[in-house]
Protein backbone atom coordinates (compact mmCIF):
# COMPACT_ATOMS: atom_id res chain seq x y z
CA UNK A 1 0.00 0.00 0.00
CA UNK A 2 1.36 3.38 -1.04
CA UNK A 3 0.78 5.97 1.69
CA UNK A 4 0.93 8.88 -0.75
CA UNK A 5 -1.79 7.24 -2.84
CA UNK A 6 -3.92 6.64 0.25
CA UNK A 7 -3.43 10.31 1.19
CA UNK A 8 -4.66 11.38 -2.25
CA UNK A 9 -7.70 9.10 -1.94
CA UNK A 10 -8.52 10.57 1.48
CA UNK A 11 -8.16 14.20 0.35
CA UNK A 12 -10.17 13.73 -2.85
CA UNK A 13 -12.71 11.68 -0.91
CA UNK A 14 -13.07 14.44 1.68
CA UNK A 15 -13.61 17.02 -1.06
CA UNK A 16 -16.23 14.82 -2.72
CA UNK A 17 -17.90 14.19 0.64
CA UNK A 18 -18.10 17.90 1.42
CA UNK A 19 -19.73 18.43 -1.97
CA UNK A 20 -22.40 15.91 -0.97
CA UNK A 21 -22.78 16.95 2.67
CA UNK A 22 -22.56 20.74 2.71
CA UNK A 23 -25.95 21.29 1.06
CA UNK A 24 -27.48 19.36 3.95
CA UNK A 25 -26.08 21.78 6.50
CA UNK A 26 -25.98 25.07 4.60
CA UNK A 27 -29.25 26.82 3.98
CA UNK A 28 -28.19 27.89 0.52
CA UNK A 29 -30.73 26.31 -1.82
CA UNK A 30 -31.47 29.68 -3.35
CA UNK A 31 -27.89 29.98 -4.57
CA UNK A 32 -28.15 26.78 -6.56
CA UNK A 33 -31.30 27.37 -8.51
CA UNK A 34 -32.15 28.37 -12.03
CA UNK A 35 -29.22 29.06 -14.30
CA UNK A 36 -26.57 28.23 -11.71
CA UNK A 37 -28.01 24.74 -11.19
CA UNK A 38 -28.35 24.25 -14.92
CA UNK A 39 -24.75 25.32 -15.52
CA UNK A 40 -23.51 22.99 -12.78
CA UNK A 41 -25.47 20.13 -14.33
CA UNK A 42 -24.03 20.81 -17.80
CA UNK A 43 -20.50 21.18 -16.42
CA UNK A 44 -20.71 17.87 -14.59
CA UNK A 45 -22.03 16.03 -17.66
CA UNK A 46 -19.42 17.75 -19.84
CA UNK A 47 -16.60 16.83 -17.44
CA UNK A 48 -17.68 13.17 -17.42
CA UNK A 49 -17.98 13.11 -21.22
CA UNK A 50 -14.63 14.84 -21.57
CA UNK A 51 -13.00 12.38 -19.19
CA UNK A 52 -14.31 9.43 -21.22
CA UNK A 53 -13.26 10.98 -24.50
CA UNK A 54 -9.77 11.93 -23.32
CA UNK A 55 -9.24 8.41 -21.95
CA UNK A 56 -10.52 6.73 -25.11
CA UNK A 57 -8.59 8.94 -27.49
CA UNK A 58 -5.47 10.25 -25.76
CA UNK A 59 -4.05 12.39 -28.56
CA UNK A 60 -0.49 11.42 -29.41
CA UNK A 61 -0.23 8.46 -27.05
CA UNK A 62 -2.18 5.65 -28.73
CA UNK A 63 -1.09 3.97 -31.95
CA UNK A 64 -3.12 4.70 -35.08
CA UNK A 65 -4.27 1.07 -35.54
CA UNK A 66 -6.13 1.27 -32.22
CA UNK A 67 -8.11 4.36 -33.22
CA UNK A 68 -10.48 2.54 -35.59
CA UNK A 69 -11.57 -0.17 -33.13
CA UNK A 70 -11.86 2.42 -30.35
CA UNK A 71 -14.01 4.78 -32.40
CA UNK A 72 -16.20 1.88 -33.57
CA UNK A 73 -16.60 0.58 -30.02
CA UNK A 74 -17.55 4.01 -28.66
CA UNK A 75 -20.04 4.62 -31.47
CA UNK A 76 -21.62 1.20 -30.97
CA UNK A 77 -21.86 1.77 -27.20
CA UNK A 78 -23.57 5.13 -27.81
CA UNK A 79 -25.99 3.59 -30.31
CA UNK A 80 -26.89 0.63 -28.09
CA UNK A 81 -27.12 2.87 -25.01
CA UNK A 82 -29.44 5.33 -26.72
CA UNK A 83 -31.62 2.54 -28.12
CA UNK A 84 -31.79 0.28 -25.07
CA UNK A 85 -31.38 2.82 -22.23
CA UNK A 86 -29.16 0.21 -20.54
CA UNK A 87 -25.59 1.38 -19.98
CA UNK A 88 -24.36 -2.06 -18.89
CA UNK A 89 -25.52 -3.81 -22.08
CA UNK A 90 -24.18 -0.99 -24.20
CA UNK A 91 -20.80 -1.29 -22.46
CA UNK A 92 -20.72 -5.03 -23.11
CA UNK A 93 -21.56 -4.42 -26.78
CA UNK A 94 -18.85 -1.76 -27.10
CA UNK A 95 -16.17 -3.86 -25.45
CA UNK A 96 -17.17 -6.90 -27.53
CA UNK A 97 -16.86 -4.80 -30.68
CA UNK A 98 -13.44 -3.60 -29.55
CA UNK A 99 -12.27 -7.16 -29.05
CA UNK A 100 -13.80 -8.37 -32.31
CA UNK A 101 -12.10 -5.59 -34.26
CA UNK A 102 -8.70 -6.52 -32.93
CA UNK A 103 -8.41 -3.97 -30.15
CA UNK A 104 -6.40 -6.31 -27.95
CA UNK A 105 -2.65 -6.28 -28.34
Amino acid sequence: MDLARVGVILVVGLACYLERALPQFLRAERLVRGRVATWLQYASVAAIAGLGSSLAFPVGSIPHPALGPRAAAILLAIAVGAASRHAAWATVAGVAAYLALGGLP
Partner: protein
Amino acid sequence: MATRARRLFAVQCAAMTTSTEPPPLPDRASVRTWLRVAIPIVLTFFPVGLATGLTAKANGFTGLETGLMAAIIYAAPVQIAVAELWTAGAPLFQMVVTGLVINLRFLIISFTLVPYFRHLRGIARALAAQTVSMSSFAGTLTPMQRASGPEATRIYLSVGVVVFPCWVMSCLAGFGLGTRIPGRYDEALRFVFPVFIAAMLAADVREGPSLAAAAVAFAAAPWAVALSPRWGLILEAAAAATLISFLTGGSRTWIRRASG
Protein backbone atom coordinates in the same frame (compact mmCIF):
# COMPACT_ATOMS: atom_id res chain seq x y z
CA MET B 1 -38.74 -14.83 3.78
CA ALA B 2 -40.98 -11.85 3.13
CA THR B 3 -41.17 -11.05 6.86
CA ARG B 4 -37.39 -11.24 7.13
CA ALA B 5 -37.07 -8.81 4.26
CA ARG B 6 -39.51 -6.43 5.96
CA ARG B 7 -37.59 -6.64 9.23
CA LEU B 8 -34.31 -5.97 7.41
CA PHE B 9 -35.92 -2.96 5.75
CA ALA B 10 -37.03 -1.61 9.14
CA VAL B 11 -33.66 -2.18 10.83
CA GLN B 12 -31.75 -0.47 8.04
CA CYS B 13 -33.76 2.68 8.45
CA ALA B 14 -34.10 2.71 12.22
CA ALA B 15 -30.63 3.98 13.04
CA MET B 16 -31.02 7.01 10.86
CA THR B 17 -34.44 8.35 11.73
CA THR B 18 -35.19 10.91 14.41
CA SER B 19 -37.85 8.80 16.07
CA THR B 20 -36.89 7.22 19.40
CA GLU B 21 -39.72 4.67 19.13
CA PRO B 22 -39.13 1.24 17.55
CA PRO B 23 -39.64 1.49 13.81
CA PRO B 24 -42.94 0.15 12.52
CA LEU B 25 -42.72 -2.96 10.38
CA PRO B 26 -43.18 -1.75 6.80
CA ASP B 27 -46.05 -3.14 4.81
CA ARG B 28 -45.62 -5.41 1.80
CA ALA B 29 -46.09 -2.51 -0.61
CA SER B 30 -43.11 -0.68 0.93
CA VAL B 31 -40.91 -3.72 0.61
CA ARG B 32 -42.04 -4.23 -2.99
CA THR B 33 -41.17 -0.59 -3.72
CA TRP B 34 -37.78 -1.07 -2.10
CA LEU B 35 -37.02 -4.22 -4.11
CA ARG B 36 -38.27 -2.63 -7.32
CA VAL B 37 -35.94 0.32 -6.84
CA ALA B 38 -32.88 -1.29 -5.24
CA ILE B 39 -32.42 -4.38 -7.42
CA PRO B 40 -32.06 -2.54 -10.77
CA ILE B 41 -29.58 -0.11 -9.18
CA VAL B 42 -27.49 -2.92 -7.76
CA LEU B 43 -27.58 -4.74 -11.11
CA THR B 44 -26.45 -1.55 -12.84
CA PHE B 45 -23.74 -0.84 -10.28
CA PHE B 46 -22.14 -4.26 -10.57
CA PRO B 47 -20.73 -4.02 -14.12
CA VAL B 48 -19.76 -0.39 -13.52
CA GLY B 49 -17.94 -1.40 -10.34
CA LEU B 50 -16.23 -4.19 -12.25
CA ALA B 51 -15.02 -1.72 -14.87
CA THR B 52 -13.87 0.70 -12.17
CA GLY B 53 -12.01 -2.01 -10.27
CA LEU B 54 -10.39 -3.24 -13.49
CA THR B 55 -9.24 0.27 -14.31
CA ALA B 56 -7.84 0.81 -10.81
CA LYS B 57 -5.90 -2.45 -11.14
CA ALA B 58 -4.64 -1.47 -14.59
CA ASN B 59 -3.35 1.79 -13.06
CA GLY B 60 -1.39 -0.05 -10.40
CA PHE B 61 -3.68 0.46 -7.40
CA THR B 62 -3.78 -2.28 -4.75
CA GLY B 63 -6.94 -4.06 -3.65
CA LEU B 64 -7.05 -2.12 -0.37
CA GLU B 65 -6.63 1.18 -2.19
CA THR B 66 -9.34 0.20 -4.67
CA GLY B 67 -11.76 -0.63 -1.84
CA LEU B 68 -10.84 2.53 0.05
CA MET B 69 -11.38 4.62 -3.05
CA ALA B 70 -14.77 2.99 -3.69
CA ALA B 71 -15.93 3.61 -0.10
CA ILE B 72 -14.57 7.13 0.35
CA ILE B 73 -14.91 8.68 -3.10
CA TYR B 74 -17.98 6.57 -4.10
CA ALA B 75 -18.21 7.93 -7.64
CA ALA B 76 -16.96 5.89 -10.59
CA PRO B 77 -15.88 8.79 -12.84
CA VAL B 78 -13.90 10.43 -10.03
CA GLN B 79 -12.31 7.12 -9.01
CA ILE B 80 -11.18 6.58 -12.58
CA ALA B 81 -10.02 10.18 -12.95
CA VAL B 82 -7.94 9.91 -9.76
CA ALA B 83 -6.42 6.60 -10.91
CA GLU B 84 -5.53 8.00 -14.33
CA LEU B 85 -4.27 11.34 -13.00
CA TRP B 86 -2.17 9.58 -10.38
CA THR B 87 -0.59 7.44 -13.10
CA ALA B 88 0.05 10.59 -15.14
CA GLY B 89 1.78 12.21 -12.16
CA ALA B 90 -0.76 15.02 -11.71
CA PRO B 91 -0.58 17.22 -8.58
CA LEU B 92 -3.06 16.70 -5.76
CA PHE B 93 -4.77 20.05 -6.35
CA GLN B 94 -5.61 19.03 -9.91
CA MET B 95 -7.09 15.74 -8.75
CA VAL B 96 -9.25 17.53 -6.16
CA VAL B 97 -10.53 20.13 -8.61
CA THR B 98 -11.20 17.49 -11.27
CA GLY B 99 -13.13 15.42 -8.73
CA LEU B 100 -15.16 18.42 -7.61
CA VAL B 101 -16.07 19.41 -11.17
CA ILE B 102 -17.06 15.86 -12.17
CA ASN B 103 -19.17 15.54 -9.02
CA LEU B 104 -20.96 18.87 -9.38
CA ARG B 105 -24.13 16.90 -10.06
CA PHE B 106 -23.99 15.61 -6.47
CA LEU B 107 -24.16 19.19 -5.20
CA ILE B 108 -27.45 19.67 -7.04
CA ILE B 109 -28.76 16.25 -6.01
CA SER B 110 -27.88 16.93 -2.38
CA PHE B 111 -29.72 20.26 -2.45
CA THR B 112 -32.69 18.43 -3.95
CA LEU B 113 -32.55 15.89 -1.11
CA VAL B 114 -32.56 18.54 1.64
CA PRO B 115 -36.33 18.24 2.26
CA TYR B 116 -36.04 14.46 2.43
CA PHE B 117 -33.05 14.45 4.85
CA ARG B 118 -34.63 17.05 7.13
CA HIS B 119 -35.94 14.27 9.41
CA LEU B 120 -32.44 13.00 10.19
CA ARG B 121 -30.28 13.86 13.20
CA GLY B 122 -26.94 15.64 12.68
CA ILE B 123 -24.60 12.64 12.50
CA ALA B 124 -27.18 10.50 10.72
CA ARG B 125 -27.62 13.27 8.15
CA ALA B 126 -23.84 13.52 7.76
CA LEU B 127 -23.63 9.75 7.16
CA ALA B 128 -26.63 9.76 4.85
CA ALA B 129 -24.90 12.39 2.70
CA GLN B 130 -22.24 9.83 1.77
CA THR B 131 -24.93 7.63 0.16
CA VAL B 132 -25.83 10.35 -2.34
CA SER B 133 -25.35 8.94 -5.82
CA MET B 134 -26.88 9.56 -9.21
CA SER B 135 -28.39 6.08 -9.48
CA SER B 136 -29.90 6.08 -5.98
CA PHE B 137 -31.34 9.53 -6.58
CA ALA B 138 -32.76 8.75 -10.00
CA GLY B 139 -34.18 5.44 -8.84
CA THR B 140 -35.86 6.73 -5.70
CA LEU B 141 -37.05 10.18 -6.76
CA THR B 142 -40.47 9.11 -8.03
CA PRO B 143 -41.32 6.85 -5.04
CA MET B 144 -40.07 9.59 -2.68
CA GLN B 145 -42.29 12.17 -4.32
CA ARG B 146 -45.28 9.83 -3.93
CA ALA B 147 -44.48 9.28 -0.24
CA SER B 148 -44.31 11.98 2.41
CA GLY B 149 -42.15 12.98 5.38
CA PRO B 150 -40.09 10.27 7.08
CA GLU B 151 -41.47 7.61 4.71
CA ALA B 152 -39.76 9.34 1.78
CA THR B 153 -36.52 9.53 3.78
CA ARG B 154 -36.85 5.85 4.58
CA ILE B 155 -37.25 4.96 0.90
CA TYR B 156 -34.06 6.78 -0.05
CA LEU B 157 -31.95 5.47 2.81
CA SER B 158 -33.13 1.88 2.51
CA VAL B 159 -31.86 1.91 -1.06
CA GLY B 160 -28.73 3.95 -0.34
CA VAL B 161 -27.44 1.73 2.47
CA VAL B 162 -27.83 -1.39 0.31
CA VAL B 163 -26.32 0.09 -2.82
CA PHE B 164 -23.24 1.52 -1.05
CA PRO B 165 -21.68 -1.81 0.08
CA CYS B 166 -22.63 -3.39 -3.25
CA TRP B 167 -20.63 -0.68 -4.97
CA VAL B 168 -17.55 -1.33 -2.82
CA MET B 169 -17.83 -5.09 -3.37
CA SER B 170 -18.24 -4.75 -7.12
CA CYS B 171 -15.12 -2.55 -7.32
CA LEU B 172 -13.20 -5.16 -5.33
CA ALA B 173 -14.57 -7.89 -7.62
CA GLY B 174 -13.33 -5.88 -10.61
CA PHE B 175 -9.93 -5.59 -9.00
CA GLY B 176 -9.90 -9.34 -8.33
CA LEU B 177 -10.84 -10.01 -11.93
CA GLY B 178 -8.03 -7.70 -13.04
CA THR B 179 -5.44 -9.69 -11.10
CA ARG B 180 -6.27 -12.74 -13.23
CA ILE B 181 -5.75 -10.87 -16.49
CA PRO B 182 -2.15 -10.61 -17.77
CA GLY B 183 -0.54 -7.18 -17.49
CA ARG B 184 -0.19 -6.80 -21.26
CA TYR B 185 -3.94 -6.28 -21.43
CA ASP B 186 -3.87 -3.28 -19.08
CA GLU B 187 -4.21 -0.79 -21.93
CA ALA B 188 -7.28 -2.66 -23.18
CA LEU B 189 -8.74 -2.82 -19.66
CA ARG B 190 -8.37 0.92 -19.30
CA PHE B 191 -10.55 1.27 -22.39
CA VAL B 192 -13.54 -0.41 -20.69
CA PHE B 193 -14.31 2.71 -18.67
CA PRO B 194 -14.48 5.18 -21.58
CA VAL B 195 -16.86 2.77 -23.30
CA PHE B 196 -18.98 2.72 -20.17
CA ILE B 197 -19.04 6.52 -19.96
CA ALA B 198 -20.19 6.80 -23.58
CA ALA B 199 -22.84 4.13 -22.95
CA MET B 200 -24.00 5.73 -19.69
CA LEU B 201 -24.35 9.20 -21.19
CA ALA B 202 -26.23 7.81 -24.19
CA ALA B 203 -28.52 5.75 -21.95
CA ASP B 204 -29.16 8.15 -19.07
CA VAL B 205 -28.91 11.72 -20.36
CA ARG B 206 -32.22 12.54 -22.00
CA GLU B 207 -32.33 16.32 -21.92
CA GLY B 208 -31.28 17.89 -25.22
CA PRO B 209 -29.03 20.61 -23.75
CA SER B 210 -27.24 18.15 -21.47
CA LEU B 211 -26.69 15.84 -24.43
CA ALA B 212 -25.34 18.79 -26.40
CA ALA B 213 -22.95 19.68 -23.55
CA ALA B 214 -21.79 16.06 -23.44
CA ALA B 215 -21.33 15.93 -27.22
CA VAL B 216 -19.33 19.19 -27.32
CA ALA B 217 -17.13 18.06 -24.43
CA PHE B 218 -16.68 14.59 -25.91
CA ALA B 219 -15.48 16.05 -29.21
CA ALA B 220 -13.25 18.73 -27.70
CA ALA B 221 -11.67 16.94 -24.73
CA PRO B 222 -8.86 15.00 -26.47
CA TRP B 223 -7.60 18.21 -28.07
CA ALA B 224 -8.08 20.29 -24.91
CA VAL B 225 -6.19 17.71 -22.84
CA ALA B 226 -3.43 17.54 -25.48
CA LEU B 227 -3.08 21.34 -25.33
CA SER B 228 -3.21 21.52 -21.53
CA PRO B 229 -2.73 18.12 -19.87
CA ARG B 230 -3.39 19.59 -16.41
CA TRP B 231 -6.39 21.83 -16.86
CA GLY B 232 -7.69 21.01 -20.34
CA LEU B 233 -10.46 18.72 -19.07
CA ILE B 234 -11.82 21.21 -16.55
CA LEU B 235 -11.55 24.22 -18.83
CA GLU B 236 -13.28 22.51 -21.72
CA ALA B 237 -16.07 21.24 -19.43
CA ALA B 238 -16.60 24.78 -18.13
CA ALA B 239 -16.52 26.14 -21.69
CA ALA B 240 -19.00 23.52 -22.95
CA ALA B 241 -21.37 24.21 -20.02
CA THR B 242 -21.15 27.97 -20.56
CA LEU B 243 -21.73 27.63 -24.30
CA ILE B 244 -24.79 25.40 -23.92
CA SER B 245 -26.17 27.52 -21.06
CA PHE B 246 -25.80 30.60 -23.23
CA LEU B 247 -27.46 28.95 -26.22
CA THR B 248 -30.39 27.49 -24.30
CA GLY B 249 -30.96 30.11 -21.63
CA GLY B 250 -30.85 27.39 -18.98
CA SER B 251 -34.55 26.83 -18.53
CA ARG B 252 -34.81 23.50 -16.71
CA THR B 253 -33.20 22.38 -13.47
CA TRP B 254 -33.31 19.20 -11.46
CA ILE B 255 -34.35 21.18 -8.42
CA ARG B 256 -37.44 22.57 -10.10
CA ARG B 257 -38.30 19.18 -11.52
CA ALA B 258 -37.91 17.54 -8.11
CA SER B 259 -39.94 20.15 -6.28
CA GLY B 260 -42.65 20.08 -8.95
